């Protein structure tokens, strides 16, 4: 696996699949330009950055519920 390939798992104990949790962990973790929950209104005609922290909390709760149901 080169650094250019899609992420996988380091073979420590088998598994090869990347889960949705892993993807969300990374694509929603920080990221450039903006961070935290900066909200600039649409009226300001600038940047839309919805309160992602709020969204994340609900995603986290939903995923936890799914895991519990499994």
């Amino acid at each position: 696996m080169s650094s250019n390939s899609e992420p996988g798992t380091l073979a420590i104990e088998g598994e090869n699949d990347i889960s949705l949790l892993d993807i969300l962990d990374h694509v929603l973790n920080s990221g450039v330009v903006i961070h935290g929950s900066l909200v600039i209104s649409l009226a300001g005609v600038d940047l839309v950055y919805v309160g992602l922290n709020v969204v994340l909390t609900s995603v986290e709760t939903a995923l936890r519920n799914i895991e519990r149901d499994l």
Partner: protein
Amino acid sequence: MPKIAITLPKPSTNPATDTALYLYAISHAPKQAAPAITAEGIDGSARVDAIRCGEYLCWVSRVSRQEFGDQLNQRMQDLEWLATSSLRHQHVVTEISSNTTTLPARFGTVFLKEASLIKHIKQRERVLRAAFKRVAGADEWGVKVFALAPALHVTVAKGASGAEYLKRKAQLLQPRTRGKSDAELQEFVSSLKKLAVATAPGGKASAGQPGLLWHGAVLIRRKDRNKLESTLRKYAARWKGARRIDCSGPWPPYSFVGEHVQ
């Protein structure tokens, strides 16, 4: 009754007010033309374009302002939508970063106008320059340590009460995190920190996974990848049966391009 044909007015589309720019990543502008990105855009149909902004290229798709602007917050609550879209985001960023050092944008970064995107980038040139320097030649890896579920086999003396049985079982279900083993976890984390250019707390999505003892993101120089592997193997062997280590990557350096990197 004769049918009457009714022609509904076509919804008017005005690119200036109906579209928004979804940002995937920022890279240095190459001297030659930037290679085209073939991965599917964030909405499944939009092209991935590069907008030049001084010394940088901003990788964007022109998407529905309604879907990615006004309704982004609601859409993100829909896990199916979120799964598909975050995967597309990830594929595009991976393709861009396979060509050059790239600062990935967090999923859901949307600008209403090209002018506001460019203004935003210009205001952050100093931060961007520092971030490019930090992530050059390095990849992000996600590391998680889980407590393995203990054997749920409970043996109690013949004639013991049901309460006794439940008490023993509850003891077995206690997470094994106290005492000496915590020191071992600290030791593991500090050896990762020694190896890494930087470390960051793990993402929030997996924070609720059962048995998760620690998780974090580490930024590792490509030449040090085998050191990361051997450290993980060493601890995986030491903790066999008690703890599991998961490691995913290489990821674009999502967790290391903000302004609060440790």
